[in-house]
């Protein structure tokens, strides 16, 4: 009796092996693309001197949240530089950016599909539940087999792990758009594509941005785990500190992760609710321009 067990693991293993053999070229291709993207982004971040990157980050912080946040950004990034984790931090940032951008590029269309079709929603939802509940480590194993050691398995595992909130919140945002407003689009003869573009997406933007924010944060947390499969960067340092019981190194890399996390979170959150200093400046400019135009006085003119 006790000898019997369902060989679920074996089945999946066989399946993965079969996939590796049959679709090897597909995975090689994906590997090539993802690797290229990562190398490119990493180069852009690492190649310029640190002060250029810090200045750009501070400028982004200023535009998104104001001068206090810009100062905080400079201090935070300076701290990373001070503990000599700059290159690792930039590599991590590159991993996060590439993984997030791909995850977002996949999850938003999926979310739109789920919002438009109840059937698609019913299929996608349990899959997302599954992907999100599965312990993140588990993705690393097949990813490692399919893409071999390096950044790529880490990024792919990150994408799968981080995608779910992007899909969910996109669907939620679009379904949450006032039904009457969508009906108004239909009633005036707008095409479904036009309604999506001019009504549903703009009105769902805050929710979708909240999803993007979550995708980025999940990516960051996963990228550290991905250090285990050779993704290197801060994750690699943390894994190394674990194996060497190096408390100092562990915390230094950990702080760098926290600083990146705070920066990415605050910036994307500010973009999400649309209330940014740069937005306010642009609005003020627009308002003063329209106020400058002569507008006729309000008159109760009706027929």
């Amino acid at each position, binding site marked *: 009796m006790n000898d019997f067990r369902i060989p679920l693991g074996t089945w999946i293993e066989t399946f993965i092996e079969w996939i590796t053999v049959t679709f090897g070229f597909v995975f090689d291709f994906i590997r090539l693309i993802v690797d290229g993207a990562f190398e490119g982004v990493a180069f852009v971040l690492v190649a310029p001197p640190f002060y250029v990157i810090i200045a750009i980050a501070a400028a982004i912080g200023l535009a998104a949240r104001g001068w206090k946040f810009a100062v905080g950004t400079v201090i935070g990034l300076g701290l990373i530089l001070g503990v000599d984790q700059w290159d690792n931090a930039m590599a991590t940032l590159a991993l996060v950016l590439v993984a997030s951008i791909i995850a977002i590029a996949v999850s938003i269309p999926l979310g739109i599909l789920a919002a438009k079709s109840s059937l698609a929603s019913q299929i996608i939802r349990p899959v997302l539940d599954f992907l999100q509940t599965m312990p993140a480590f588990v993705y690393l194993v097949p990813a490692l087999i399919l893409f071999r050691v390096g950044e790529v398995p880490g990024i792919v595992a990150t994408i799968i792990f981080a995608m779910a909130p992007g899909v969910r919140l996109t669907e939620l945002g679009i379904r949450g758009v006032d039904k009457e407003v969508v009906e108004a689009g239909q009633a005036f003869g707008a095409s479904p594509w036009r309604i999506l573009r001019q009504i549903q997406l703009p009105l769902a933007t805050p929710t979708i941005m909240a999803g993007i924010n979550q995708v980025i944060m999940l990516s960051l947390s996963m990228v550290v785990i991905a250090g285990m499969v050779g993704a290197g960067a801060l994750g690699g340092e943390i894994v190394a500190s674990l194996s060497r019981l190096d408390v100092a190194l562990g915390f230094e890399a950990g702080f760098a992760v926290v600083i990146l996390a705070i920066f990415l979170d605050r910036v994307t959150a500010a973009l999400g609710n649309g209330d940014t200093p740069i937005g306010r400046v642009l609005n003020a400019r627009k308002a003063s321009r329209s106020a400058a135009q002569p507008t006729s006085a309000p008159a109760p003119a009706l*027929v």
Partner: protein
Amino acid sequence: MSEITTTSSSSPDASSPEIAVKAHHLYKAFGRRPHEMVKKIAAGASRSDVAHLGIAAVIDASFEVKKGEIFVVMGLSGSGKSTLIRMLNGLWDTTSGTVTVGGTDVTGISAKDLRDVRRKSISMVFQHFALLPHRTVIDNVAYGLEIQGMGRTERLARAQTIIDLVGLSGWADSMPSELSGGMQQRVGLGRALAADTDVLLMDEAFSALDPLIRREMQEQLIELQEALGKTIIFITHDLNEAMFLGDRIAVMRDGRIVQIGTPEEILTDPANDYVAQFVQDVDRARVLTATSVMEPVRAVVTKTAGPRAALRTMRDLQTSVVFVLNRDRSFAGIVRDHDVLKMVKAGDTDLRTIIRHDATTVSPDTALVDLVEPSVGSDLPIAVVDARNRLLGVIPRVTLLAAIGNVTTSTGELPVIDPPATISVNVITDILRDTEMPRDTALEGAEA
């Protein structure tokens, strides 16, 4: 049953030029097997018989809306009004039956053709305005034109004229959230008007507004309709609004149209107990307006007609008061029999010296409840005058009481003329004969 499931759109009256929208045996059922529900209902099952299958929201609705008409669909919440109106422009499919808009059958046409019909022929105003919150007022108003493919400069120019028309001049660059509810609905109305379709659907368009604004919007809608000649299908749960706006009213109950008629017909000749009860529960004094109960003015003379004409009118109609009009037909006041008699005896001819201004004047849309007090305070009928002070009709006290109490005023064709005569016919005739002078006769001859 075949009559219900398939009906030809080529029936002669569907393409008749006077019919803007035609609904032919419309059914809409929500549930797993809508067609089965419709079949059962068409075969005689009631709405509750098929309740286990789902909701029959609209049952066998047929009507024709004439061009330039305001057609009101009235019913309690849940009676199927919104479902019905959404089938007219194809927002929702019909389960069975056909809809024709401007001669085109819009049921079962392709999505693309349907969009074309919506762009060109039928637009809509929504209960909660449904404006695009991220666009300015002018861009909202221009939305329909944008979808029609009109260039930006041209559509903004056109939208601006509509903005002026609906009384929002100066707000073109504001965002909808900066506007009050009434103003937002003006934008909604403007958007529908700008699209320049013949037919306007309005689903509880004024229900979300507070009562004062609502009245104002109703009045403006009527003015706009008169100016632009649109066909309007207006949904409301408010009998008062229905009575005020509707040229004709369709009363809905539990998905069925139970009566279609003019406001007066609905009120005075309800088709069944339901409608009767519906209108009975209503405070008639608040629903009915001066227009709907006023009587034509019979005892009336122009100012220049002179006292003898006034006196003769009083004698013929057996009343003690006549209404006097200015040259331009505007209301000048009233004269009483004793004053006129004195004047005739004295040989004076200028009616102006004895005109009294104690008659109450009201506008046509005054609710009856507001007529009670002035009516009680005086024996004079209330004068109903329009914005230019022209006398439209009068409301004698008897008429007012009868209308509020829902009893018929007269037993026959005899008009009610108030107040009754105080001087006998013979006395007046004698005086008219005794004072007759050639000059006066000539004057009267010219008047006649």
